[in-house]
């Protein structure tokens, strides 16, 4: 069983955010994400983070789910923040950390309030006009959903690989941690491909 599910778990509900159609919501998330990245200085990104947390609460995404979404990224965010502080001072560190965390919260809120089926429909509809130039919207939508589902799967593989290395007294060995993880991630991709193939998904 997965201990941490950062993205991709839809939680049914009846809030405004659940009712907004997937297409406009996806476009809104894209626009908000671009705007958040464009913000500079320590205070505006902090305000964006507070707003993102506010929207998550409004959408009734449980704080525990937001925390589970953030937890796997904490070490990376901490290293990023410390490096920026050392190199460019605290205002830039706050800007980078607040922007990154805000984007993760926005992503978590989006996936928690949007059923994957609706998201696939929205992508297929949105990319429909591109059929004329040979684009297959169904395949792009499927790739999008697989990517979201792969995130918890890869975290689970990383967790199991760490446990296996620890059981053999190799928890400090980079090779014992990274090599099996890379191989198992590729194997997971292969298995997913075989499962899709077996179900006839992507055949047409």
């Amino acid at each position, binding site marked *: 069983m997965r201990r941490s599910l950062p993205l991709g*778990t*839809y939680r049914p509900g009846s809030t405004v955010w659940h009712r907004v159609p997937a297409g406009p919501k996806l476009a809104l998330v894209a626009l908000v994400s671009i705007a958040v990245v464009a913000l500079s200085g320590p205070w505006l990104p902090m305000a964006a983070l507070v707003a993102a947390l506010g929207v998550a609460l409004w959408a009734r995404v449980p704080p525990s789910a937001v925390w589970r979404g953030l937890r796997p990224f904490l070490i990376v965010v901490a290293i990023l923040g410390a490096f920026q502080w050392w190199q460019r001072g605290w205002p830039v560190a706050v800007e980078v950390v607040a922007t990154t965390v805000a984007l993760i919260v926005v992503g978590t809120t989006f996936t928690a309030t949007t*059923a994957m089926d609706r998201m696939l429909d929205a992508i297929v509809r949105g990319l429909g006009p591109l059929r004329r130039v040979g684009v297959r919207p169904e395949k792009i939508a499927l790739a999008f*959903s697989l990517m979201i*589902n792969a995130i918890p799967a890869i975290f689970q593989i990383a967790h199991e690989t760490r446990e296996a290395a620890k059981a053999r007294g190799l928890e400090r060995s980079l090779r014992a941690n990274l090599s099996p993880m890379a191989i198992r991630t590729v194997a997971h991709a292969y298995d997913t491909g*075989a*499962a899709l193939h*077996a*179900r006839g998904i992507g*055949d047409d």
Partner: protein
Amino acid sequence: MAAISFDDVTVTAESAAGDVVILHDVSVELTEHRIGLIGSNGSGKSTMARLVNGLVTPSAGTVTVDGIDVADDGPAVRRRVGFVFTNPAAQLVMPTVAEDIALSLRRRVPDKAERERRVTAILDSYGLAHLAASSVHSLSGGQQQLLAIAGVLAIEPTIVVADEPTTLLDLRNSRTVAERLFALEQQLVLVTHDLDLALQCDRVIVVEGGTIGFDGDPAAAVTHYRETVAAP
């Protein structure tokens, strides 16, 4: 019942040491309702099962399902043949239970409301309705395998191929999954190490070293397999 036909089928795989023969000149017709494939690890029984769905294509010879060559028209064959994997976690590709069933129905049922109604009905019939919004990763092994079977049957296949579907399950879940599979009206090709399950089939094939070692009555096949395994 559907007709699955293997005609002089050979499957080879490349390895560092050269080509390895996995199946060698296998010819067999499968028309019974429930067909068991048993054999040692690496004997080639899973490869035989995968050939039926087109997951593996023959290096030589032909495999046909209802007269359709698997190598020529894989999509048409896969619309007829559902495949259940040993590890259900590998088969569940959507984040939640309901979404995974909906994925199977997307092409067959374009209307969203009708699709949601069918998803609910399918989950209900498998006792999984209360888990509709749950992450597929949070289910027990037995629930995952039931969901995988439900996802396969949602495409309404005429043949179900199951590759060791109970191997990773405890006794209770194993029985539940087996009961589901044996209750199917569809033709069932079951790869298994569980000889009790094999005995419930109408016909059992023992695969040995890439060839058919025995083919016929389940009791006789299981006896043959036991004697072969016990032999020095």
